[in-house]
């Protein structure tokens, strides 16, 4: 099993460590800012459209308008 190219095997050990190190750190500012670009792929539909266990909110969304008592009169 260990008869493969030793250079590739050592490289693989380093790559494994680098992979998990990079996976744990946050992406660069450039990447995070690109999330808001219009043509950028957005994945929020995964949990917004196909998510479950969304507790129904008792807050009615929309714009509220405050009516002063003077206007009523």
């Amino acid at each position, binding site marked *: 099993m260990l008869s*493969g190219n030793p250079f*590739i095997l050592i490289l693989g050990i380093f790559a494994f460590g680098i992979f998990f190190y990079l*996976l744990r750190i946050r992406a*660069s500012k450039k990447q995070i800012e690109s999330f808001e*670009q219009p043509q950028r*792929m957005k*994945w929020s539909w995964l949990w917004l459209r196909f*998510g479950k266990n969304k507790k129904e909110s008792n807050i009615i969304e929309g714009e509220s308008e405050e009516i002063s008592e003077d206007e009523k009169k």
Partner: protein
Amino acid sequence: MSKHAALDTFGKSGNPVIRSSAFNASASAGSERMTLDGAVNKTAIMLAVLVSTATISWNFSGPLIDLVTLVGIFAAVVSSFITFGLWIPFIGFIVNPRPYLAPRTWLIFAAGEGFLIGSISLTFETMFPGIVLEAVSLTFCVAATLLFLYKSGLVKPSQNFVLMLCSAIFGIMLFYIGAFIYTLVTGTSPEILSGSSNFSIGLSLFVVGLAALSLVLDFDIIEQSAERGAPKYMEYFGAMALVTTLIWLYIEILRLLAKFRSR
């Protein structure tokens, strides 16, 4: 007189359901959010489960282990379809994705995929000694490179990029299904798939490229979900997606190396 009399009243309510810390505790528990660390930990756990079951199918043989392997692979395929759904270009989702099921399906998925990887790896290792660890090493080399490109912001998946990649993957999937049917009918695998000609190696390189680019989508799902405060189950979903692509990449690299060695 205050204009917000009702708010004042509820705000000062003595009702324990509204005012107590119990209310706050349940609210925060229900809105548990995904973290990057959580997704990474789940990926590592899934890979550990995968390697464990792969070791079982590698080291043991016999009718019982064959049966367990078959059942495991079938269960992994079913759990993948349940979690990821099935998308077809220009039609849409035939099966809707259910990311909220990922916390229940990940273990079956990882264990089943492990059996698949174990049996495939053993077949290749028997033919070409040392090929498995080389393929594992190259898989992580490719994954680490793509991850660096993604994290640094050099690769940003746009909607067109995702559409083209998904269409190409769908095309390859159709090709593999066609090749499978051809093998069943004629009893021989098509030359382009199993041969070691330049064209066959070129096709393998193309598929490795597709698998590598698919990793970018998985990194993006994980990063965006964590950034946008997605629900906790997206940690499992992101990890499952990443492990699926790593497995695909590994198998394609394994086949590519085998083609190089058999020349």
